[in-house]
């Protein structure tokens, strides 16, 4: 018998950070989370799974289109029609979302209560699923402690939306210790909430399947569900299955010792080909970071747009519609000694000293911030605060911006008339 365990569907949560450009395969990123969930349904049907477990965060709390809920219902309908049982519970996003309300899910789909821990026994499968959903967005008590005792003779599965003992980038909801889970005596803990796949323990199994579809570059690599195989009343196999349709990744190109932008481009082309080969035909959304102390630095900094345009052309050539350069970051360094430059009593030294002075002066910084305000106040809120906010909104980001300005000025000033 097989069980599919997934979590964090975040249906219709849009993929972010994919900068639009001429020829970008926008149509390939539409509906990615839905396609991934359809893949999950197909997996359950193909593998003739008896049970599908969804450990919360079906919806994205910020998303308000009810069509998403109707889509969810229709897909569950496919499973139920094929005789597959579905058990799910609400995660923090679902608790905050209104999408789940009013929705009458198909008969055969079981939602675990968010009021108290419950057990659902599937006698014909010999499986008991225990769990409790989120009543509110922020659940801070340790739900696992009050989960029911295991049923002897059955395969006991705990369904729980939790951060366990804390995971970077994830709110510490329903916190618990791994030991709490192990001590419960279940056979398998089907967790949700953390978007990176992680097997915390194998005896018993404690598994974060990760989310179904990476949504931005901070969720890189293969995404999907966990396929559990049960035989003779115990878990005999746990296997990750990739179900994502768009894959995020970061490719670092070492430009050290590259003498020219062309050489950097050639190296990047090789890196892109290699990355593409690993994406298994999915759309690869790749962030390219060019780094290292490089003789090509000046050339790159003087006209980064040209480099970006050329790189995009190469990406189109190498990957066609299979590749989207999410972002291209030029992080090369000048071989020259910037401190020594700043020490010089000449025009160049003046500029560097000026920049150094600005960094250290609150007044100078705020003046520059005012200079930027003419754009900042026009930007959408999501670029002013939150994960997508522009870097210069915080001091570190602002310093980085000044670094970039410094490199820009140095390269342009050095280039003289030849640029």
């Amino acid at each position, binding site marked *: 018998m097989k069980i599919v365990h997934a979590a964090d569907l975040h249906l*219709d949560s*849009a*993929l*972010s*950070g*994919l*900068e*639009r450009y001429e020829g970008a395969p*926008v149509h390939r*990123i*539409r*509906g*990615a989370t*839905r396609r991934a969930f359809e893949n999950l349904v197909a997996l359950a049907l193909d593998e003739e799974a008896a049970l599908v477990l969804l450990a919360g965060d079906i919806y994205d709390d910020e*998303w*308000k*289109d*009810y*069509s*998403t809920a109707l889509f969810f219902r229709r897909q569950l309908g496919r499973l139920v029609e094929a005789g597959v049982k579905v058990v799910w519970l609400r995660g923090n996003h679902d608790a905050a979302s*209104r*999408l789940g*309300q*009013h929705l009458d899910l198909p008969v055969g789909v079981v939602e675990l209560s968010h009021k108290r821990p419950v057990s659902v026994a599937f006698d014909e499968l010999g499986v008991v699923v225990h769990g409790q959903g989120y009543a509110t967005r922020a659940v801070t008590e340790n739900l696992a402690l009050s989960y029911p005792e295991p049923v002897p003779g059955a395969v006991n599965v705990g369904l729980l939306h939790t951060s366990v003992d804390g995971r970077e980038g994830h709110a510490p909801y329903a916190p618990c210790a791994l030991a709490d889970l192990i001590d419960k005596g279940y056979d398998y803990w089907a967790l949700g909430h953390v978007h990176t796949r992680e097997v915390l323990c194998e005896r018993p199994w404690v598994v974060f399947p990760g989310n179904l579809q990476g949504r931005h570059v901070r969720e890189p690599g293969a995404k999907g569900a966990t396929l559990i195989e049960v035989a003779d009343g115990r878990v005999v196999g746990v296997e990750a299955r990739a179900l994502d349709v768009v894959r995020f990744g970061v490719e670092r190109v070492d430009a050290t*010792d590259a003498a020219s932008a062309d050489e950097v481009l050639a190296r990047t082309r090789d890196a892109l080909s290699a990355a593409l080969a690993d994406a298994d035909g999915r759309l690869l959304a790749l962030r390219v970071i060019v780094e290292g102390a490089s003789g090509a630095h*000046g050339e790159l900094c003087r006209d*980064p*747009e040209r480099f970006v345009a050329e790189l995009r052309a190469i990406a189109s050539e190498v990957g066609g519609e299979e590749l989207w350069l999410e*972002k291209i970051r030029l992080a090369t360094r*000048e071989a*020259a*000694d910037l401190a*020594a430059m700043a020490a*010089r*009593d*000449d*025009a*160049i*030294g*003046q*500029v560097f000293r*000026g*920049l150094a002075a600005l960094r250290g002066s609150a007044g100078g910084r705020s003046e*520059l911030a005012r200079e*930027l305000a003419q*754009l900042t106040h*026009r*930007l959408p809120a*999501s670029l002013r605060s939150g994960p997508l906010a*522009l*870097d210069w909104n915080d001091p570190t980001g602002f310093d980085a*911006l000044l670094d970039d*300005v410094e490199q*820009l000025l140095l390269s*342009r*000033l*050095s*280039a*003289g*008339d030849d640029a």
Partner: protein
Amino acid sequence: MRLVELGLTRFGGFTDARLDLSAPGLHVIHGRNEAGKSTALRAIRALFYGIPHITSDAYLHDELLLFARVVGADGSELAFQRRKGRKNTLLAPDGSPLEERVLSRLLGGVNQALFETTFGLDHERLRRGGAEIAAGGSDVGHTLFDAGIGAGSVKRLLDELRREADELYSPRTQARTKLINAALREHKERVELVRTASTRPQAWADQKKELVAAQAALGDVEARRSEHKRRLAAAEELVKVLPLVARRDAARAKLELVGGAPPLPQDAAERRIGAERDLAATERDLERTALELAGVERELAELRVPEALALLDDRRLDALRERLGKYRDARVDSAKRQAELAAAKASLARGLAALGRDDTEPRALVVHRADLARVGSLAVERAGLEAARAQAEARLGEARAALAALEAEVGLEPWRAADPGVPADALDRALPSLERVDAFARRFANGDQAREKLEATRSALERERATAETELAEIALAGEVPTEAELLRVRQERDARLLELRSSRASESRVALEQLAGIEELVRRADEVSDRLRREATRVARFAALEARRRSAAAALEGSSASEAVLASEAAALAADWTQLWREVALEPLAPAEMRARLERLLRAREKRAELHTAAARARTLVASADAALAEAGRRLVAWGERWAEAVRAMGLGPGATPAEATEVGAALAELATTATVAEELRHRIRGMEQASTAFEAEVAEIARRHLPELVEAAAREVEWAASEIFRRHRACRELERQVSELEARRARAIARSDELGARRESALAELALLMQVAGVTDRAQLPDAEARAATRAQAETEIAALERDLAALTGSADLDALGARARGVALAEARARVAELDEELAQLDAEHAAARDRCGAAERGLARYDDSETAADAQVEAETWLAKVRAAAERWARLQLGWRILRDEVERYRASHQAPLLARANELFPRLTLGEHSALVVDHDADPPVLCAVARGGARVAVEQLSDGARDQLYLALRLASLEHYARASEALPVCLDDVLVHFDEPRTRATLALLGEVASQLQVLLFTHHEHVVTEAVKVVPASALSVHELRRGEPPRRRERSELGG
């Protein structure tokens, strides 16, 4: 930092070239075009920052290598090498890698680009620098800044940054073409689309609630409507039922009128009429049949058949009729046969008399045909036997004659006559075969041939030897011919002597001297022979060739003698064999051809003799066989005579009778025998006919006696007539019998018909009785009335049943009486009015139902609109892509915007802090460079921004853009030199490389500039590259010797420092 030594180890066209730049002061590096000036400049750059991967300096050397020794401002010295490559290109003098920072510490934070722009200057850059000051509106800040970097125009850079930032974004809301503005707008549109395309959960819930309500309302109206329909149906049913109930009541009344009339079968009347008709017809036929029967009986009574005659068998009469014919024929034939018998008897008597045997019984005369045939064949056989004997005699004679002839021929011997030397018994001896003789002939011929050939070869060789000897003699006459052999010999002798001399170890003795003299002689002779061999090479060669030919011919001749002896012995052996061959036959052996002819003759004679012997044997056999045949013929003739005697005795002839006699007697006897046989047959036939006639008459008499007694008498008299009468009467009797039987058949048929009619009559009567019984009447006349009443009853009952069926079908109810009771009180019009009323109400309900259904459909459609559409989600995805675009562009914009802002501010700060010292120094330099044409540089603070002006000799202010190109060059040079000097005071300066900067300067200004450079060189290391000799000349004139070094670069030569003595001045 000063470059004190530059080593071009392997670079460009240089190999292991060194430039010593250690001397203080100005270094002028002179070289003509292509001498390597530019190479040296590139080498300095490459030393500090690396050799480019793509370089024009690798045409001579594969592994480029440079060397340098530098001294920092702090006095520290560094020697290093630079190789071409990607990593570890900086090396210590011993080749070990050096870290770049060891060098970069001395470079003072100057990167390659800045080194080229700040510390390098050529005439083009000089000209461009001047022009840019003018083009930039002489903004003091910009000008000082540009002169400080030497790279280009900071004004242009500021404009560039401004422009690039503006292209990305404009704060004006209506700006549409700016990338960020446009992307923001796109983003906003998508966000709006997300909002409008999204379904609110509440909206969906409301719609669902409405659907539930609409479905409930629909259910309610449907329930009411179906109840109403039920009522309407009942009313409509009543309207249909009422007429039927009325008709049913009427039918029932009619039924009561006919009361308890017994029911009759439907066809009762028909059956009654049929039965009455049958009865009448049957009675008529019965009367007719009785009359016919009476007639037949009468006819039968009248007919009488004679009984005796009737008993007469028809077959007996048929036989009698046949015998009557034969009886009539026999009476005619009998007379004719009696006459033929008498004639035969007479003929027989005549034949016997002719043979003289009239006494003999004709039967005894008959001779058997076999005996006659035997006599005939014996006569023929006799002739054959006699012919055979004659033939045998003839053959014997012939055979004897032939034998005699052959025996005579054997005695002759013709072969001996032709060759008398042949012995008589030669033919009986063993003669050799012809093939063997032929083989001997060939061997004789071969031997002859071989001898001839050998003879020919010998004479040819002898001729050859003679020729060679003659020519050799001729050559010998011309003098002795030297030979290799002679040379060898003389030399061997010489060498032997020398060996001897050496071994004697007495070289100083006299003997030795003599020996030496001898050896000398031998050396001389050997040389002479050798010389001659060379000189007379042709002759020597010819001589040697001839000698070789002569020797070869002699050797060949010796060989041929041996062959000759072999041939002779072979011939003798052959002759002996030949003689031996013929000894056996005792013939003298002649030549093979003759012996072959002789042998052929003998062989032919032996063959002929054998043939003759064979023929004689055959002839003797023939004589013997002819003899035997003759004897056999005689024996056969004797045997024939015995058989003949026996045969003729049967005919009454003696053995001496001839075959002809015997044949004739036999023929006569045969004829008589035939006649006797004919007479016998005739007698027999006549007797048969008489017996048949008697039997016929007896039969007729018998028949008459038994069956027709009245004809007995006539039969005895007129048998033929009596027979005919019998036949006639018998026929009449048979006719009577036929008539009687026919009448009897008719009588039987009439009786059967009468029986059948009787039965039919009974049947009709029974039918009528039955009908009367069913109808309950006693009289047939009462039947029609009963029938009418029964029909009326049946009709009424049928009608009632049909109506009840219809009613049951209409109402679906079995209880028709209750229905009738219900309907009876209601009027049809009343019922119709009720239906109309209900119809009207139903229409109202239908409308209500349609409205409820519409509401339900609308609610369903409304809910269906909320599908799992991706429109909003897609719009959100698009919004995110635009957002990301805005983000990326905003970052770029921020860099450009801040870059612009900071640069602008720093240029101004630079001006503020550097204007005074730089202008002060430039004010010293510029007048000197312009030879006083311009006295000073001033800042016009009235302008905004402040601008730089020159003060002309007369004190007038001249704007930079109004200065001549040369003056601008000098202005820019003054500012650059001032900046460099200023820089060098506080920071680690690098060598200043000037590349033919003085191209556009006239001689006085060149001098002035060189003098200035000489001064500047006390603070900065100045390397002036030029390919103009006059620059060198002028430098020597104006720069003190202690502050000037001149280096000469020539193509293909190592660089050389010109000594002071060479510089003159």
